[in-house]
């Protein structure tokens, strides 16, 4: 495996980590909009309170790693998607502060405002991530000099919106499974129903997205059908998806959550496998596409950063796992905090 491929893989790992970890935060945030009462809302916030911030760092690191390893992709895509990124940032700002602000003032209107900010601040990113992936799959108007400029409205094409709704539903399923694993009683039953409901929509949308991709981006299937990795990932994906409702029925919600995480990881894997070695396919001319070779940093930087990542990330994973172990347990609503 060459250095560029290693970095493609590493960024895939960072984005997978983000999708699994912050994915449940986003899902909890969307579910927050549908909570029955204040007690449930407090549990939602307690469930992610100590960990969401660390989870978001996976996105920041993914973005930083993109800057370091594939600066051309970082520069061209971020500036080309200008307004979409601004919208994403606004949503993430609101989500961050609403978690902190909500419990500070004992007033129903104050709480309602921050509940909406938290919910929408989670829903918008959950949707936008899918929209962004949809647009990358369709291909973007990358010019011969590597630049691209897409108006915000052009990003909201039917195919990409379909992928956006798919990612939203996926995060809701994931967040519901997480909450079911962390709660008891009525809220747990409610979250079990949400997991199953979201799962049904997830399966339907998965089929729809796959079918639509055949029309929107037929090249996406070229040359990978013979790749054994594809079939391994497909088996993991199908197994994980099939296991979610089984685990919910057996009331083993932690397993349902892990299965949902497995589904997310294998989906990101499949996306990366089809994309490879492209990073941003060009819809104007395939030769204009930004790839892991023409958009990358120098071998020296890739080597240095690989060393940094191989030292740093195991440490991160170790202490993150420790902190999760401290906080994971069944939540009962208390009046303290949030």
């Amino acid at each position: 495996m060459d250095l560029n491929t290693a970095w493609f893989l590493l960024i895939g790992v960072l984005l997978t980590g983000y999708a699994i970890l912050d994915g449940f935060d986003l899902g909890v945030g969307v579910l927050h909009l549908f909570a029955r009462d204040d007690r449930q809302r407090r549990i939602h916030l307690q469930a992610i309170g100590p960990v969401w911030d660390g989870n978001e760092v996976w996105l920041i690191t993914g973005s930083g790693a993109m800057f370091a390893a594939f600066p051309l992709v970082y520069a061209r895509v971020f500036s080309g998607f200008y307004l979409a990124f601004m919208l994403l940032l606004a949503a993430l700002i609101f989500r961050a502060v609403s978690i902190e602000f909500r419990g500070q003032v004992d007033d129903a209107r104050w709480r309602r405002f921050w509940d909406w900010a938290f919910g929408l601040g989670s829903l918008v990113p959950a949707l936008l991530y899918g929209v962004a992936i949809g647009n990358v799959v369709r291909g973007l108007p990358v010019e011969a000099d590597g630049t691209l400029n897409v108006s915000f409205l052009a990003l909201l094409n039917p195919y990409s919106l379909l992928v956006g709704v798919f990612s939203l539903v996926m995060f809701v399923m994931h967040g519901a499974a997480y909450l079911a694993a962390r709660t008891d009683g009525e809220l747990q039953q409610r979250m079990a129903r949400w997991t199953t409901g979201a799962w049904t929509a997830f399966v339907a949308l998965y089929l729809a997205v796959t079918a639509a991709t055949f029309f929107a981006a037929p090249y996406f299937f070229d040359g990978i059908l013979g790749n054994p990795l594809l079939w391994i990932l497909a088996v993991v994906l199908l197994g994980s998806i099939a296991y979610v409702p089984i685990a919910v029925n057996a009331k083993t919600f932690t397993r349902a959550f892990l299965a949902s995480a497995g589904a997310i990881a294998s989906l990101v894997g499949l996306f990366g496998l089809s994309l490879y070695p492209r990073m941003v396919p060009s819809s104007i001319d395939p030769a204009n596409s930004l790839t892991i070779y023409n958009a990358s940093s120098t071998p020296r930087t890739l080597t240095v950063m690989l060393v940094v990542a191989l030292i740093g990330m195991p440490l991160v994973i170790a202490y993150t796992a420790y902190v999760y172990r401290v906080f994971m347990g069944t939540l009962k609503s208390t009046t303290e905090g949030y």
Partner: protein
Amino acid sequence: MELDALFLSRLQFALTIGFHFLFPPLTIGLAWLLVLTEWLGWRRGDEDYVRAGVFFGKILGLTFAMGVATGIVMEFQFGTNWAEYSVFVGDVFGSLLAVEAIFAFFLESTFLGLYLFGRDKVSKAVHWFSILMVAVGATLSAFWIIVANSWQQTPAGFVVQNGRAELADFWAAVFNPSTIPRFSHTMSATIIAGAFLMAGISAYLLLKDKETAVARKTLKIGLIVGLIASVAAMFPTGHHHAQQVARTQPEKLAAMEGLIHGQRAAPLTLIGIPSEEPPELNYAIGVPGLLSWMAFGDGDAHVDGIEDLRRQGHPTPPFAITFISFHLMVGLGSLFIALTALGVLLLATKRIDNSRLFLKLLICSIPLPLAACQLGWIVAEVGRQPWVVYRLLKTSDAFSQNVAAGEILFSIIMFGTIYLMLGVLYLFILVKKIKQGPQPLVTKEI
């Protein structure tokens, strides 16, 4: 100035980084003060320190959340608004930012959750370790971001090749000539910011006769640590930094010191009124020879002025704003030494409780270190203009060509509105928390 994409991108960067930079100095400084406070609470078994830890910990959490919310913008903004810059420097600068994320952001964020929510869930040793890791993570974050910015000031360890700066020597890029002077100076500034916050809040509690046992202890910590850091900000770190600027960025030195014409035995200007084009300094009062001596250790050394550098073909930064910001910062720095020295004197002679005027002064001084940080940042960044990477890439060549001015105007209005609201709410909640004061210890059931 017209509202073109370049101007708007600069305005947006100044606005977003300026607002963001209000919070990290507070969290870094406060985190280290809490390392000390929590240590005393744990090792001495003194409940006052533990309650102080809980109280200031909540303020840390609130401030940290603001830093996170506004900081995420920074990680994206190089790509969205400064695409040409990102393409040019990605190989070097991008990797420095990524190191920050991997070694610092995870550490501080993950352990902050443990510190704030884990007090009753882990042992006292682990809990103390968690605030230590927050402080270490925040400091590493400061280190790597200053490394990245210092590389823009005094680039090293690279070659320009294939139309971009490519990494040649990682450690030379990391420890470029300005990294250590700027890191040590900035760190002392963050400690001052945290110390003034702690001292000011403690002064408020004393004045209101609330939880005075706790407040006296935190006031003592704030004043003593504040004095040490205030002295350190001036000497050795500030002095060291200025000497480095003199050697490596003569344009910035000339502008910040107000030296128009190069001379031997150059004076250190204490005050003066600058005007821009042609650069002039009127009503200046200075100490002859002192600038030469401070910059080069020789009272007779020649120091280049703005006009000399222009004649040599080097563009110089906006003069007035650099000069004024620098002198205000130095003035504030001197005030910090005076205030904290007086405070320590009052502590030592046990007169602090009755010095109501001094306590009021401390409350009013809470925002001053943040003002000094902003001014220092302006000196650093405006003083580097017109370059975004010193003598390598101009700011006017660095912005995203493919983003329309209207789009940037929209995002400026969006960030401006959100930040205004967040700033007001932050102050509102901060004041509310301070008024509540330290609470009795309760064992939480979760």
